[in-house]
Each structure stands twice: as C-alpha cells, then as structure tokens.
C-alpha cells in the first residue's frame, strides 16, 4: 500500500511541479510590481510636501490593513474578464489578477520598508552633507540611498517569503496552482494514504522554498546589524 501511494505521488509529481511553478511565477511578478510601485509610493511618503505625502500615507494604511484574501477577491471579481486594448479583446487571466492582488499589499509594505530605511539614517548625515553644499537630490543619490538598499534587503526578502506563502490563496479564486493541483489529485486518486501524503508534500514544498530565504534573511540581518 505504501508503494502504491508513493507510485501515485510520483505519477502526480509533474503536475505538482507545474502547479508550484505557477505559485513561484505569481510571487516573482507580484514582488517585482510591488517593489517598483512601493518605491514610488515610499518616495512620495518621504517628500517634504504634504500634498504628496497624504495620498501615500492613505495608500499604505489601506493596503497594509486589508486582509490579503479580501484583496485577492477584490482584484479577481472587480476587474473585467477581458481588456479592450487597441481594438482587440485581450483575455485578463485570473492568475494576473491574483498577482495584482498580492502586488497591492506588497507595494504598501515596500513603501514602509523604504520609509523606515530612510528614517534609520541618522539626521546628522543630512546635516553634514548639507554643510558640504550637496543639494537634496545629491544627498539622496550619493549618501542616503546607497545605505538604504543595504538596510532594506533583509525585510524585503522577508516580504518576498511572505508573498510566496500568500500565493497559496490563489487556489481559492480558481487559479490552477499547487494547492488546486493537490486537491484535484486527492479527489481523483481518492485514497486516505495518498491524501495525507499529498497535502504534507505541499507543506514540504513551500517549506523547502521559503526556509532558505528566511535563513538567508536572518544571516544578512546579523551581518548588517552594527554597520
């Protein structure tokens, strides 16, 4: 019976791999979009003008406080099925909508990470560089930002791991991902041993992907702690 279960698991492993690739693709796209958008919003949030600061603050507050699942439902059901681009109807697949749904909270978190990193640079550095006649733009580009990227890296990687775990929610809106595949496999094979195995394999796959990221993050945190 154990051999049968293992055989069924082996048979389903290509499908599981395809499903997991979908999860990884969503997570990579979501962190890419979220980072670009988040840096933009973070830059607005640290600007000296309140008119740009206020919308950035609202964006961050709304998308950091909303449950991810609700945001995913939001983007899935509110966006249209097709887009009308240049006279053509282009399909707007569900997995892209989920990606946007995850990119929204990601952007809010990246904005906060960015704001935190800039806030963590001692104010004396600003004063010192101003006294050396650097302009505001020059201070940002040559003094503040290079230090910020180092400080942002560990929390950003942490965020990526969290987003990867968030992609599990995609199965709830009908994206054919790892968990969806596992459910189909479990229902098709319909054997107790197999069901146990497949769900714990899903758990193991996520763990194998996310644990090294988390270890690397801890390592970097310790390395950058006092510099």
């Amino acid at each position, binding site marked *: 019976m154990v051999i049968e279960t293992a055989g069924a698991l082996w048979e389903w492993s290509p499908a599981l791999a395809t499903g997991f690739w979908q999860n990884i693709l969503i997570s990579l796209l979501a962190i890419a979009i979220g980072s670009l958008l988040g840096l933009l919003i973070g830059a607005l949030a640290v600007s000296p003008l309140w008119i740009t600061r206020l919308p950035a603050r609202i964006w961050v507050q709304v998308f950091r406080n909303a449950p991810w699942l609700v945001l995913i439902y939001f983007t899935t059901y509110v966006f249209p099925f097709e887009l009308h681009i240049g006279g053509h109807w282009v399909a707007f697949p569900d997995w892209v909508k989920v990606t946007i749904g995850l990119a929204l909270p990601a952007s809010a978190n990246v904005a906060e990470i960015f704001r935190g990193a800039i806030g963590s640079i001692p104010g004396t550095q600003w004063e010192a560089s101003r006294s050396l006649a650097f302009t505001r733009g020059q201070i940002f580009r040559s003094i503040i930002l290079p230090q910020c990227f180092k400080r942002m890296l560990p929390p950003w990687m942490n965020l990526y791991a969290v987003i990867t775990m968030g992609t599990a*929610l995609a199965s709830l809106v009908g994206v054919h991902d790892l968990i969806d595949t596992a459910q189909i496999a479990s229902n098709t094979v319909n054997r107790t041993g197999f069901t146990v195995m497949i769900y714990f394999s899903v*758990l193991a796959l996520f763990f194998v992907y996310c644990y090294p990221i988390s270890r690397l993050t801890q390592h970097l945190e310790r390395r950058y702690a006092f510099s």
Partner: protein
Amino acid sequence: MSHWLEVFVQWAAKLGLNYSFVLDAYARDSLLQGALTTVWLCLFTLVGSLLAGVTLAAMLTSGKPWLARPARVFVEVTRNTPTLVQLYCAFLVLNMLLTQAVGTANPLTPFAWVVIVISLHKGAFHAEALRAGIEAVPAVTLEAASSLAFSSRQLLWNVQMPLAVRFALPSLVNNLIDLVKMTAVASAIAVGDITYASIMIWTQSDNVLELMILLLAFFGLLSFVVNCVGRFLEARLRMPGYGH
C-alpha cells in the same frame, strides 16, 4: 433603524454604489451573523494564540534541548509555510483521519479547526517575539535580582517576565492585528465568517465592490480596536527607562 438604513442606501446610490441588499432582512442577517462569527473567531484565536505563544516561548527558553528542539522545529515549519496549507493539512487530512477513527462522533467543527490552526500559527510568531523579549532582559538585572535572594521562580515571574512582556508588547500587538486579518481564511473551509457571508451574497447579486468596501471597513475597524487596546496597554505598562 430601518429608516437610517434607507437614508444610507439612498446616499450611497448617489455615489453610484448599490447597497440595497442591506434592506433585505435575509442578506442583512447573514452579514451580521458573519460579522459576529468573525468577532468570536478573533477572540478565541487571540486567547488561544497567546496561550500557545507562552507555552512555545517557555519551551524555547527552557534551556533543555528535548523541549527547545521540537519547539524550534515547530516554529520554523509554521513560519515558513502558508496558513491555508496548514489549514488544509489540519481540516482535510487530520479531520478526515479523525472522522475515519471515531465516525460521526467527531467533536471538532470547521470553526474549531480554524481556531486551533490560527492559534498555533500565530502562537509561533508570539513565541519568537516573547523569546526575543526574554533574551533582551539584561543579564546584570537578573544577577542583581539573584543577589537579592530571589528564587529562580521569583526571578522568572517578578523580574524576567514583566520586563520581557514589555519588550515584546509592540510585536505581540502587531501579530494580533495580523491575526485579525488572517481569520478571513476561515471562509476557505466554509466557516460562516463575514468573508463567507459576503461571498454568498455577491454570488447571488452582483455587488462585489460594495461588499468589498464593507469588508475592508469591517476589518479596518477590528484592526483599529486591537491597535487601540495595544496602545493603551503599552502606555499603561510603560516603565521609565525600558522600551519606548
């Protein structure tokens, strides 16, 4: 009450939002029931996660490898796997095995499984926060206390824990806000929380946007309440010279 609802519906209609479902007694009751379920879910998991967190933190800092090692493995696995997968592993796998073992006498409802899984999940995060708090207590403080003839139990309860809780409080509150948001996954196994009630309504009448705004406002309100309680506790427990 119904008069105010009508005024609200008309006001929302001017903004282009169709909230007429709140005038329908059935939809309104199922939403209110869902909101109540979410609040209960939050309260149960809040208490459960703190209990699990304290237990795990005690195991992690016990200094005994046979206690610390399993706790560490549990914390790492919990922190690095999705909640939804953990919920499925519990509800679809463990619950199935339990039902096969005891038949229909299975005492655990989907609600209970959600409480157990989220409590343990957030417990792992609380444990890390508490462990960091316990380790942040300066060694000299403990040495000073033991030189004043505190027993090891007194040392733990009167010196180490009060300080550790104060250090850990901001991240505990952060975890609890996350917990409130996380209860939305209960809808995945058909627990009738507010998310599930909303899904039921928008599959019948096409008003996703209106329900989404309602959902976001509701979760925003819950997070806000947790945040306020956290702020109050932080101010109440503040000790000059410790924490912020």
